[in-house]
Every structure is written in structure tokens, then in C-alpha cells.
């Protein structure tokens, strides 16, 4: 992909290279950008891209058209996404058969294909560009700025867009201490979940004794439903790499590792390619840009244990040992991988660094809240209309996130709760929707920022079921080293399972609270200490739902099997007989033209009648 295979021996050489690349790119060239993020790829983007490439070939090269794949655009709900320049015309839900229309109308003639534009349900208006779509309007894409623009497999694309300027600036005009000072003043905090001030971490690592020092990127994103780090590594791998080289210079390290889950094959591929390209240009390796700073990166693929996202477990895994955490009474910045000072940051934290160096601490600190600066990427999923990847300034309210960007709840249902912070985050109810999203505010509500998962739940979601689901996940992912996590989660799950089966007892809530408090105090690592959050937060905000399960043996959300009944509404029943025929236990009786009836003594609550009724006559009561 590199047009000139040459080592860049100085910052000037990088700038000249950038200018050459830009000169090659005509500003009026027609460009088709096809999103190749995971969601769009799953929905058929590679076939769409192939059609565009075919069309470009068929047109005989008469038109200056560039077809390229990019990283995730974020609006996964509406993928595959195709954007055509000039005009930044945004198409959604593009299928193979739509390519001919886009080619003929937009690429060749500059006219939009209206049926593929985003239609605003509220106003009925059509949006031509992303800026006109509510999903994008409230966002501020800083870390993801290049995700929909550059080809992640091309270092030239990244450089032409301004990439590695932060590295050049840092290496040639700043001393390591100045860099740490800028990162500290920017207010950047760790994006992996802990929210630890990044500058302070870098300072501790720089001051730590021991050689060599290691710089590590944590790309072991394991939260169910989260894909922030994945999209970043897949879409803008060079931003992570650039941040790490700067970090290495700041703390005095020449050795970098990226720990990425093997379940992210595209991230592994794009990062590997990016590292190779950066080496070829002399941006990684000995004497970067002609300076004395040397730095190289190895990729370490994780085998899929959730706990390996925890810093000490990650480092154990990196050393080739079993991925189990250890106490952090001596911090990893002092004694990390192989007992050496190790600077571990999440990939999103690293990707923030180049822009902070280029634009300054004040620019970064101008975004966000008092205690949480900059932007944060979230994966907005669940019962929300526009699920996808969202980047907003810290301090945006949950309501804005869910109702403006997310477009509200699907199928006109009522909002019930939002779970932030991954499996060990808490569930936040409607009354706190106006809470600004930042590290400290979410913690105050008994949840956490985590790495940016955001799962929206509607009125049909049983909160006992939610707590049970996340605890099942955590029980399976607990490494089992320490007693409270291994035994405590299993005990809490036993109680929740009984409650959800209608076998709850008075005092069960107290047991959950007692075990929750124990885990918070006694567990070894953050997996264990935060594991009770889904239970404690739902007990706190939805206590009456627990009590309904325990005392009345009733599931208010009508989700827990056995804690509600199926009944046929005689007024709605058309006596079609489908439910009667499909019922596996012959519990439904009824003659032609007469409303059918479920025999509750035979019914096993399997829900088949509910699913097959075409007239919504089967009700959960």
C-alpha cells in the first residue's frame, strides 16, 4: 500500500512525504467509502465493496474514482454504510443490488439516490450527510475522527490525514517530562474502566526503577455487547500505535506489546499490517524519525478469558502464565511484566494521545466535565432504536445518549433502565436519566463508566433476570483464584436463580446485599469487587420487582417462566386454531369460531402460543 517504500529519516521527511501523498489526492476526485466495520461486514459490506470495484473496473478508468474500505462508521443499526464524495452523501442499508444505482446516479452524476438516504422518522425529512442525522449530530468524533475516512490497511491514508504528526512533534520538540506534563494537564483518564489519571500513571512509570520498561495496550475487550476497542483497532490501528510510541518515549521504554483478543481477527490483522508498515517507514524500530528514540511493538493474542482484561492477569498471560490476577499492592508501573516497570493503557486511551500532543492539553480539557475530560466512545446497544458506536464529549446526559443519539426505545416501549460499564456495571433507572455521563457521576449511582458499554432495557426486561444473566457471565469468567469471587458469585447466583423460579424466600435480598458487600471488600481483583454491581444496583432501584418475585411469585416484566400466565383474550381471538395445533402439551381447546382457552393445569409456559398467534390474542398476565 505504501507508495514510496522509504525510511523517513527526519520529521521534515515525514512532512514532505505527507505533502506528496496529499498532492496525489485530487480534492475533486470521486470517492466511494464502504464501511468494513464488523457490523457492516456481517451485513454484507464485502459484497457491496466488490460490486463497486467491479463497477469502477467496468467504467474503464475514465472516471477518477477511488473505492476504499474504511473502519466502523458507528451507525451499525443501518449498515452496510456507503459514503460518496464529493458531497459526503451518506447511504444506509446498502445492498449489492443498490450499487448500480449509486454508481449511475451519485458517482457519475452527483445526484443522491433518495431511497437509500436516512429518513428521519420524526420529521419525515431525508438526510444527505451524516451531519443531518440525529444519530451523528450530538456526537463529537475525536478518537473516531478517522474511522470512517481512512483505509485502516493504508499507512499512507493515515499520514495524509495528519497521522504521526503528534509523534514527530513529541520526539523533536518535547522532552519526556513535557509530554507527561501535557498528558497530565489534559485530564485524560484511563478509558478501560478504572478512570485512573493517565498522566499520573505515566509519571509513576517514568520514575520507577528498573530496566527495561514495557509499554502495553490493553485490547482485551471482553464485555458482552461492547465493541469500542475493537472498532478502534480495526478502523484506526495507527492511532493506537502512534500513541504507544509517544508513551514509550515519555516513560523511557523501547518495548511495546498490544494484547488483543484472538476473537478479533480483523483487529489482529489490521494491527499487524499497521506495525509492518510503520516499521517500513521507520516509524517503529531503531532511531525513529532520525532521533535516538527506538521503539517496537509485538502483538500478543489473548485466548479469550474475560479476566485477562485485568491488568495483572493480562501481564501474567503476556508472560505465558495462566491469566490470573495478583494483588496490586505494588503497582504494575513499578513491577509489571517480568517484574519490570510496565505502562498499561487501554487502546482508546492510547488513541487519544496523538491528538493531545498535536492540539494541546487545553484543547482536550475544553471538552468534558470537571473531573472527566475529552470524549468517550460507547457502544450503545439493547432495546434502543439506533444501536451503534457513539463518541460523545464527557458530560452528555444518559437521556441525550439514549433518546437523541439512540433515537429512543424500539417498538414504542417504555424505557426501564440502562446498564453502563459492562457486565459488572450497574443498572440506572429512569429518574437518573439526566445524569451527565462521566467517571464520577456513574460511580455515585452505583454503576461505573467501565470501558463504555451501554445496554438499554425496556419495560419488558425483568431486572432480576438481568442481574442473573450478568452474574452467570461473571461466574463463568471468574478465574476462581480467590474465595469470595469464586464462591460468592456462585452463592449470589443460587439466590437469584431461586428468586427467578418463584422459590425466593424472605431474607434473600438481605443475603444478596451481605454477599455483595463481602465481595466488594474481600475479592482479589476488580472482577470480583465489581461483580455485585448488577445485583446491588437492581436491588437498590428495582427492589419492588425483587419483592414481587419473592412474595407474590410474580414477574412484573413477565419474563421469568412460571411467574406469569398465558391467557387468550376472547375479544381478540379469531379462533384460527393455530395455537391449539402448535401447543406441545394440548393445553389449548376451542371450537371453530369460538375463542380458544388455555387449560392452566396443563400449560407448561413454553410460550409457543404467544409466538404463533397472528392476532396478538395471547397475553402474558
Amino acid at each position, binding site marked *: 500500500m505504501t507508495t514510496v517504500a522509504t525510511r523517513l529519516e527526519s520529521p521534515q521527511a515525514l512532512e514532505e512525504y505527507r505533502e506528496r501523498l496529499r498532492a496525489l489526492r485530487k480534492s475533486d476526485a470521486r470517492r466511494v467509502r464502504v464501511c468494513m466495520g464488523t457490523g457492516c461486514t456481517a451485513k454484507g459490506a464485502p459484497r457491496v465493496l466488490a460490486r463497486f470495484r467491479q463497477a469502477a473496473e467496468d467504467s474503464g478508468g475514465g472516471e477518477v474514482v477511488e473505492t476504499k474500505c474504511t473502519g466502523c462508521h458507528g451507525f451499525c443499526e443501518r449498515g452496510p454504510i456507503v459514503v460518496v464524495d464529493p458531497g459526503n452523501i451518506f447511504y444506509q442499508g446498502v445492498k449489492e443490488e443498490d450499487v448500480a444505482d449509486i454508481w449511475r446516479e451519485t458517482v457519475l452524476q452527483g445526484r443522491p439516490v433518495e431511497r437509500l438516504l436516512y429518513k428521519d422518522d420524526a420529521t419525515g425529512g431525508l438526510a444527505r450527510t451524516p451531519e443531518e442525522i440525529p444519530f451523528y449530530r450530538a456526537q463529537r468524533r475525536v478518537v473516531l475522527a478517522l474511522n470512517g475516512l481512512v483505509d485502516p490497511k493504508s499507512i499512507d491514508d493515515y499520514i495524509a490525514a495528519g497521522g504521526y504528526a503528534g509523534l514527530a512533534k513529541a520526539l523533536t520538540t518535547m522532552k519526556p517530562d513535557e509530554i507527561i506534563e501535557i498528558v497530565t494537564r489534559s485530564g485524560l483518564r484511563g478509558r478501560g474502566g478504572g478512570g485512573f489519571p493517565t498522566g499520573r500513571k505515566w509519571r509513576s512509570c517514568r520514575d520507577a526503577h528498573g530496566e527495561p520498561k514495557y509499554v502495553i495496550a490493553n485490547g482485551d475487550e471482553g464485555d458482552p455487547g461492547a465493541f469500542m476497542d475493537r472498532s478502534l483497532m480495526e478502523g484506526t490501528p495507527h492511532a493506537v500505535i502512534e500513541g504507544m510510541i509517544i508513551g514509550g518515549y515519555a516513560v523511557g521504554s523501547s518495548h511495546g506489546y498490544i494484547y488483543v483478543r484472538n476473537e478479533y481477527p480483523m483487529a489482529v490483522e489490521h494491527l499487524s499490517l499497521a506495525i509492518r508498515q510503520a516499521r517500513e517507514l521507520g516509524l517503529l524500530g531503531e532511531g525513529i524519525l532520525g532521533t535516538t528514540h527506538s521503539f517496537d511493538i509485538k502483538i500478543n493474542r489473548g485466548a479469550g*478469558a474475560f479476566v485477562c482484561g485485568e491488568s495483572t492477569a493480562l501481564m501474567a498471560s503476556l508472560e505465558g502464565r*495462566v491469566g490470573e490476577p*495478583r*494483588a496490586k*499492592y*505494588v503497582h504494575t508501573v513499578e513491577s509489571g511484566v517480568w517484574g519490570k516497570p510496565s505502562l498499561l493503557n487501554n487502546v482508546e486511551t492510547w488513541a487519544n494521545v496523538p491528538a493531545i500532543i498535536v492540539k494541546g492539553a487545553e484543547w482536550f480539557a475544553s471538552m468534558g466535565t470537571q473531573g472527566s475530560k475529552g470524549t468517550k466512545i460507547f457502544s450503545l446497544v439493547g432495546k434502543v432504536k439506533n444501536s451503534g458506536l457513539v463518541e460523545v464529549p464527557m458530560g452528555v446526559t444518559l437521556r441525550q445518549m439514549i433518546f437523541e443519539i439512540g433515537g429512543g426505545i424500539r417498538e414504542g416501549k417504555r424505557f426501564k433502565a440502562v446498564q453502563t460499564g459492562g457486565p459488572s456495571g450497574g443498572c440506572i433507572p429512569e429518574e437518573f436519566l439526566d445524569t451527565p455521563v462521566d467517571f464520577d457521576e456513574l460511580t455515585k449511582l452505583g454503576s461505573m463508566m467501565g470501558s463504555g458499554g451501554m445496554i438499554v432495557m425496556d419495560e419488558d426486561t425483568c431486572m432480576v433476570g438481568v442481574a442473573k444473566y450478568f452474574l452467570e457471565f461473571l*461466574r*463463568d*469468567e*471468574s*478465574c*476462581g*483464584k*480467590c*474465595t*469470595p469471587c*469464586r*464462591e*460468592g*458469585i*456462585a*452463592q449470589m*447466583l*443460587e439466590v437469584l436463580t431461586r428468586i427467578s423460579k418463584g422459590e425466593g424466600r424472605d431474607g434473600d435480598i438481605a*443475603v444478596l446485599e*451481605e*454477599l455483595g458487600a*463481602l465481595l466488594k*471488600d*474481600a*475479592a*482479589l481483583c476488580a472482577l470480583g469487587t465489581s461483580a455485585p454491581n448488577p445485583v446491588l444496583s437492581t436491588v437498590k432501584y428495582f427492589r419492588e420487582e425483587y419483592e414481587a418475585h419473592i412474595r407474590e411469585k410474580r414477574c412484573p416484566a413477565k419474563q421469568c417462566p412460571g411467574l406469569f400466565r398465558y391467557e387468550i383474550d376472547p375479544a381478540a381471538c379469531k379462533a384460527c386454531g393455530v395455537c391449539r395445533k402448535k401447543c406441545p402439551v394440548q393445553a389449548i381447546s376451542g371450537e371453530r369460531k369460538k375463542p380458544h382457552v388455555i387449560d392452566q393445569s396443563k400449560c407448561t409456559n413454553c410460550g409457543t402460543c404467544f409466538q404463533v398467534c397472528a392476532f396478538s390474542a395471547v397475553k402474558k398476565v
Partner: protein
Amino acid sequence: MPTVTIDGRPYVARDGDTILAVARRLGVWIPTLCHHEALEPYAACRVCLVEIERRGWWQVVTSCNYPIRGDLNVRVNSERAVRARQGVMKLLLARSPESAELRELARRMGVESTPYPKVTESQRNCILCGLCVRVCSERIGAAAISLAGRGVERAVAAPFRMPSEDCIGCGACAEVCPVGTIVVREHADEVEISPFKSRARLRRCASCGRPVGSERVREVLASRGGPTLVEILSREPLCESCRRKRLAAELTRSARSGAGMA
């Protein structure tokens, strides 16, 4: 020299001491299960939890591996620390209710019974303290067993749950096991480490024929060099009573001839 104050009693500690080491010197009892003087701290069982003061906040830490790096204020018997330790013990009792050793320690900690049902399976009361695994790798150097499986599936096992050829049959794992999970069984000409099914050739007392231990232990010890008379004697295939007799005889002989012991 940092001053560690435990429940109001000051003590001058050495840098790098753990809270547990200081407490023991002070005669303050803190229960432990996964701790052993000869092994690296592991901090997995969590029955040694205490409270410490950090920047004005009290937090719960494991005393067995918390390093002293400056003056430190510790509470061993505060309500929160006791509650945390007892809570952990109740969870362990639910896991291994049959263990007499565990029940004894629980009683000493003020826990008479557990309110929790048994929800995790333990192999012969194993509480997964990991002492056996660590003594085998850190001290014996055999690393014949390890912790396999994750979370509630975790168990001590030899690789692939097959008899391990790395096992020298020394029985150190059984020796350190606090709940009697591991048993050394003697067969006609083999010693078996149960439940791992690993076997090693059994040595018998040359004098009375009673079992002495594993043949490979002698080989391993011999390969480590520097024996003394007492050690050489201990490597002879002698049971305890015969060894005593022989030692007494040797000592008498050497004392008579004026020869040294070493």
C-alpha cells in the same frame, strides 16, 4: 524503620515485611489457609484480611502479602475486618462442609456454621488454597500438579488428569494440604499420590521392611549435592525407628573414635 501499629500496639518493622509477619512477631493471631512460611504469598483464600489506613481511608487488604513500605496503621480485630474474614470462612464452609480442619479453624474465628448451601463441588474438601501446587513447583521443582479449569470448575490436577511422570512421589503436597485432600498411599512396591494417581517406586526399610518413601526422592536429593551425615542417614532405606538406632550407633562409634559428624 517503619512503625506498624496493629490494633493500637506500635511495632518497629523492617521494610518489606508483610503485615502478617509483623502480627506474628507481635503475637497477634490472624488466621491463614493459603499461607506457608516457605512459599511466596498467594493471597487467594482471603481469610487473613485486615483493615489498613490509606490516605485517611480504611480499606481491607490481605495481610499475608501486603508489604510494609512506611508507617502503617492496621486493624486486625475491627468489626469490618472480622466480618470480612468470617464471611470468607462461611463461603469456604459451604464449599467443604465435611472438613474437620476447616470447621476447627472456623470455630477459632468465631464461625460456628454457614448460612449458605453447597453450590460448588470440591474434591475431597479441597479449598483451592494452592499450597500443594506451589510447594511442588517452588520448593520441589517438579511442577507435577497445577490448578486446572476456571472459576467454579477450578481444581488441582496433574496435566490432562493423568498420572504425572514429573511427580517424584515426595508427598510434600500432602504435607502442606490444610484440609487433608491429598493422601500418600503405600502399595506393595509403589507410593501413590492420591487423588492425582501419580506413582513412584517405593523404598522399604532394609532392616525391618517397613515403607520409607519414594525412590525418586533419594535420586533427586542426591542430585542436589552437599550431603551431611544426618542427611545421608536419612536417605538410607530406614524407617524412623531403625534410623534412630543406626544414628545412635554411628554417633556412638564416631564419638569413640573422635571422628567429626560432618
